[in-house]
């Protein structure tokens, strides 16, 4: 069975925000919504051993997503392949899922009419993925810092990266089982 996951190789990310812009363009997002910011804590270390690490963020498409079970309308959906998305036709904008998400990956736009607010989030570009393409942020990343694939396929690039490297996931202690894995930069060393 297919189970999609993404690997963020922090050794390769240079914080150019191309993925951020590409996502906004592809999904035609309102100005106050950002699905995948690339964040950084700033320069670390003491000269000459200084480093700058970037953390590309996105919806973690958790295996046990707290945002799905809390939705009272069934608008928050987890597909069999692990993709979590919002059916805007069912959403009533109660924002309970926005509060439930530990990663701040869901949002409502205040730039739409008051009676037409619904929750938006990254869908792993499921329409592209179903046609065999990569999500648009992955396709755009010229550093190849974002890698997407099937976690259940041992030959896929994500499986090999996760099995071959030390990876971390955000807020694992919350029991959400995120599908986004990070390969830490470790101060510029591979």
């Amino acid at each position, binding site marked *: 069975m297919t189970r999609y996951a993404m690997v963020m190789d922090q050794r390769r990310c240079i914080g150019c925000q191309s993925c951020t812009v590409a996502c906004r363009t592809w999904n035609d997002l309102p100005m106050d919504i950002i699905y995948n910011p690339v964040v950084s804590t700033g320069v670390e270390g003491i000269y000459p051993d200084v480093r700058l690490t970037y953390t590309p963020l996105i919806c973690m498409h958790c295996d046990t997503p707290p945002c799905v079970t809390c939705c*009272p309308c069934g608008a928050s*959906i987890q597909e069999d392949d692990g993709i979590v998305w919002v059916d805007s036709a069912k959403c009533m904008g109660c*924002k309970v899922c926005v*509060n439930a*998400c530990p990663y701040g990956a869901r949002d*409502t736009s205040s730039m739409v009419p008051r*009676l037409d*607010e619904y929750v938006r989030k990254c869908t792993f570009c499921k329409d592209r993925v179903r046609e065999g393409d990569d999500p648009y942020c992955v396709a755009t990343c010229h550093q190849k810092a974002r890698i997407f694939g099937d976690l259940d396929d041992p030959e896929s690039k994500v499986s090999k990266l996760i099995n071959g490297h030390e990876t971390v996931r955000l*807020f694992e202690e919350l029991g959400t089982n995120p599908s986004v894995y990070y390969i830490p930069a470790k101060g510029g060393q591979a």
Partner: protein
Amino acid sequence: MSVRNPNMIKNHYWTWPIAIYLFLGGLGGGSLFLMMVFQFALGIPADIMAVGGFIALVCLGIGCFFLVFELGQPTVFLRVFLPPSKKGDVSGKSIIKWGAYLLSVSLIFGFLWFLAPFFAWLHGFTNWAWLLGYAGMTPFKDFCLILSGLTGFGVVVYTGVMLASNKSKVFWSTPLLPVLFTISALSTACALLSWCCGGWTSPTGPLALAYAELAHEILHTIDLVLVIAEIITIFIYVLMLAGAGNVRARQVAHRWLNSKLFWGGMVFGGLVIPFFLYLIPGAPSLYVAPFLILCGGCLLRFLVVLSDERRIIPGEDRFFERLPKGDEKFLNTWEKGENLY
């Protein structure tokens, strides 16, 4: 993990309507529950609290209105009652869905119960026999009160559970929050009922007045105990988070501890002063103390709802701090198809 400017992270997805809803839901549900307890556990007829029951129903109704008002799409709020549409739809597990069911059942059966004392009172003006016929349907009336009281207690507990289930919210995700909300809701319900008790005694006469007096005494005593319990719970709650490992939780707890609204409004104005006023016979214990308890309960909901900070991913604060602010109008005008610049 350092937090540079936590205000730059988008918070407050739920605002004042939800705070009012949580307060009114707890107040209404708690009042119906207490009326049930008085009738069936203490043998004091709930009819002597009919005015309080009516106000509780109005509170639940207004609470529902604010809940719907806060929705992004208020016109489609009935979606919350739809059953799961297909296999794999887990909306049946949603706490908010259960809350909506509890609220509706409590409201409907509470209203059906209220019709009985109301019709008995109305009969005095109209002499229509069928009004008294409905008022005399004791088993049905009791059934309505039991159902509405039990679901009312469900509403009381659910308001806290709903917030505490958000693991991402550093100040909400503690089992003490449902305890605090339950104590506070029952305390405000005591205040409301003692305020209205005997105001409209459906079974008039000396017996009803004696019942009303007894109910007053019991409600005041219960509320005194609940106020002490609330003071202890709230201090454990805030001090526990003030020493928590999470930086954000500590920040919010210290904000509470340094807030005049918390100390002056909630602790002293809403708990300590009414506690002592309850001990003074006459107007202070009958009117002033319950009013202050209600204000304190409402303030608690506001303070909690607006303390909805989530834990920060390292670097996230820095990113949002650097986003341009104030260009929204320009960019939005551009987006609407007509280039005005």
